[in-house]
């Protein structure tokens, strides 16, 4: 079994090594088999691991020690894996969705000369992501944590000819690094407190500690800083929209389905610690709400198809953190899963559109594509309905669970959450309608030349659509007579956390719950209708009158809208507050402190000696008389001091 478990991450690594070493020699055909193949293999292995887990009479988490890593007296960190429902779920999502996206990429990137490089990076990413979720201690998790950051860097800057992309990649890596520093500090604090990095030891000891202790709050907050960086929450979210510079499959896999959810996974993994720090939970809640609201608002005003999806990702991640903050860990994981499905679907759909439009990403220049790209359209529609949270699509169930949890925790939060849900519905439908309905407004090619993507790309779309449609049934709440399979499956992981959770939740009567659900559905539909009224029937002529929607153009009269379109100038703010001063400081230190001060002191000492020398040498006047005079003075002084005194 150990071998099997070890193989799950190692196969993608192998793929990376082979593709990396032979990135020139290996033909594309082989690569397009090898790349997805390894992922497929580890997907199958993960399923085996899953059944192996379920098959055991009393399902229990298993601990695998593969190899020692940093180990010396009184300190030992090994390459240890922990196989429990949580990691299994993540493994399945990563390898499953990963595999689908790999297949899709084989089609999408087929014309790119960096084909092999692309798959090498993708495999490497899967490797690190698996390490991240399978690790049995924080150190191993950190390996994955930084590794996926690296891969995201490499893949965002995949087309490295373009310095804009490289900047985006660099930004992503650095912002992640900021988070990682927090994470690292958290790890250190964990080690100094619990003398171990292993989940098991840490949690077992943590359980005995009193809730709300300072160290616990510090630990959880520091870890959360890492999550903020990785999962693009306020204030470290600005890298994610820029990350759309990467190829669309990358956006789908890394910046929607898997990597960005690492933060959520980490918090869920450390649920025991978090429930012991209620204050931290509140902080997470606040940040989550702020993030999801901000992102949703910005999303409404974006015109780049991928940017819209990016912001929606940010706000969906906010959802997950909100769920975590109210202790609905299962809900968070559930939404993580469904989100992986439908957001991947949406991105790939967008990718298919962009592919068809030959790189055009501005939705104002699209429209009426549902006839030319029917399959893409239908799958995209499924995705939209899912994210909008309409039954029976997966998004409905996961969102409903979260909303229910939030409602029981506090009405005000619930209201904001619902508001965000509605915004989500609105901008998603806006996106849908502007892209596929109305009439074609493209500038590049006449609509007739556009063609549907190859089946290599469509089939993955369909599979994902299926998942987005059916994924929800995994966890139908008791309210609707479901058994909550996922809940039961994950129960052992969160058992302690649930037990320890202090936050008292008011019991919500079933009637009220049903009412909420119906209300939300109704409002969502309303939003869809509004979006349709506004954007549903834009024709080519209307581009002149209102490109997409005039009053949402930059320079329009409404200040708020202009701000929203410019993402509230947060990037500019960071640039002014952090980047520019840092560069100035660098200049200044070098020019003034380094050269004009420190080095000048060093040279100064030397020069002083030389100056002194040039003066003192005049004692050697060359006149015998003078010498005699000095000598006599010397003699007299010596005699004076020694005899008279």
């Amino acid at each position, binding site marked *: 079994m150990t071998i099997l478990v070890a193989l799950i991450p190692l196969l993608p690594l192998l793929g990376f090594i082979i593709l990396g070493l032979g990135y020139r020699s290996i033909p594309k055909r082989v690569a397009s088999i090898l790349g997805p193949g390894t992922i497929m293999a580890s997907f199958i292995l993960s399923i085996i691991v899953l059944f192996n887990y379920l098959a055991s009479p009393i399902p229990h988490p298993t601990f695998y020690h593969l190899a020692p890593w940093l180990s010396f007296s009184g300190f030992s960190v090994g390459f240890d894996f922990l196989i429990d429902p949580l990691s299994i779920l993540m493994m399945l999502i990563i390898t499953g969705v990963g595999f689908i996206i790999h297949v899709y990429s084989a089609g999408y990137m087929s014309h790119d000369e960096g084909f092999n490089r692309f798959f090498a990076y993708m495999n490497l990413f899967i490797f690190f992501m698996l390490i991240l979720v399978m690790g049995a201690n924080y150190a191993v998790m950190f390996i994955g944590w930084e590794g996926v950051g690296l891969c995201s860097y490499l893949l965002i800057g995949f087309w490295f000819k373009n310095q804009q992309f490289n900047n985006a990649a660099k930004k992503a890596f650095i912002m992640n690094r900021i988070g990682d520093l927090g994470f690292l500090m958290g790890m250190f604090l964990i080690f100094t407190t619990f003398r171990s990095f292993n989940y098991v030891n840490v949690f077992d000891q943590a359980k005995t500690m009193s809730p709300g202790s300072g160290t616990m709050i510090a630990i959880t907050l520091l870890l959360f800083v890492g999550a903020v960086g990785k999962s693009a929450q306020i204030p470290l979210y600005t890298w994610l929209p820029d990350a759309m510079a990467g190829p669309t499959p990358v956006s789908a896999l890394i910046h929607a389905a898997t990597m960005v959810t690492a933060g959520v996974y980490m918090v869920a993994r450390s649920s025991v610690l978090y429930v012991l720090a209620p204050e931290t939970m509140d902080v997470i809640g606040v940040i989550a709400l702020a993030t999801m609201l901000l992102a949703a608002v910005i999303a409404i005003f974006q015109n780049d198809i991928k940017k819209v999806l990016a912001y929606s990702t940010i706000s969906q991640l906010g959802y997950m953190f909100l769920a975590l903050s109210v202790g609905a860990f299962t809900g968070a994981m559930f939404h993580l899963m469904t989100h992986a499905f439908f957001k991947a679907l949406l991105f790939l759909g967008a990718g298919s559109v962009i592919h068809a439009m030959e790189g055009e990403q501005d939705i104002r220049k699209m429209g009426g594509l549902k006839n030319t790209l029917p399959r893409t359209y239908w799958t995209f529609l499924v995705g939209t309905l899912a994210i909008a949270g309409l039954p029976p699509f997966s998004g409905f169930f996961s969102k409903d669970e979260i909303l229910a949890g939030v409602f029981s925790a506090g009405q005000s939060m619930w209201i904001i959450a619902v508001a965000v849900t509605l915004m989500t519905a609105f901008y998603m439908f806006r996106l849908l309608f502007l892209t596929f309905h109305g009439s074609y407004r493209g500038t590049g090619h006449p609509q007739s030349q556009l063609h549907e993507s190859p089946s290599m790309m469509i089939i993955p779309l369909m599979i994902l659509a299926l998942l987005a449609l059916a994924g929800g049934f995994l966890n139908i709440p008791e309210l609707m007579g479901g058994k909550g399979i996922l809940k039961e499956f994950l129960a052992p992981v969160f058992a302690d956390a649930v037990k320890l959770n202090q936050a008292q939740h008011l019991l919500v009567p079933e009637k009220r719950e049903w009412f909420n659900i119906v209300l939300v559905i109704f409002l969502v539909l309303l939003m869809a209708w509004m979006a349709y009224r506004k954007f549903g029937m834009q024709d080519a002529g209307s581009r002149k009158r209102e490109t997409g929607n005039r009053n949402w153009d930059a320079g329009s009269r409404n200040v708020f809208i202009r701000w929203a379109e410019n993402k509230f100038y947060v990037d500019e703010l960071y640039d002014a507050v952090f980047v520019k001063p840092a560069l100035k400081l660098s200049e200044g230190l070098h020019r003034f402190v380094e050269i004009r001060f420190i080095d000048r002191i060093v040279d100064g000492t030397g020069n002083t000696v030389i100056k002194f020398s040039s003066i003192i040498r005049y004692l050697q006047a060359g006149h015998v008389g003078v010498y005699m005079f000095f000598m*006599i003075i010397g003699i007299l002084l010596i005699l004076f001091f020694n005899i008279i005194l």
Partner: protein
Amino acid sequence: MNALNSIPISYYLMFCSVLFCIGVTGVLIKRNALVILMSIELMINSINLLLAAFSAYSNDPAGQIFVFFIMVVAAAEVAIGLAIIVLIYKTTHSIDIDILNKLKW
């Protein structure tokens, strides 16, 4: 001998020191090489006298023997000195010590 003893040694010491100092001053203030040479001779002779006095007082011949050594050496020194001064005069047509300060700093 008694006549010599009737004068306390300190007088000799004073006298010789004064002589010595006169010599030193001469060396210091004069610029003429010859005069300086003579002043040095004066210094040395004051020392001779002092030594003679000491040896007389401590009834120890060594001092007076030493005086002879000094005289011999001084003679040699003067010989060399005069030769040098002649040499200088040949090259510079002067025996002023301040002319020669090519070597300095």
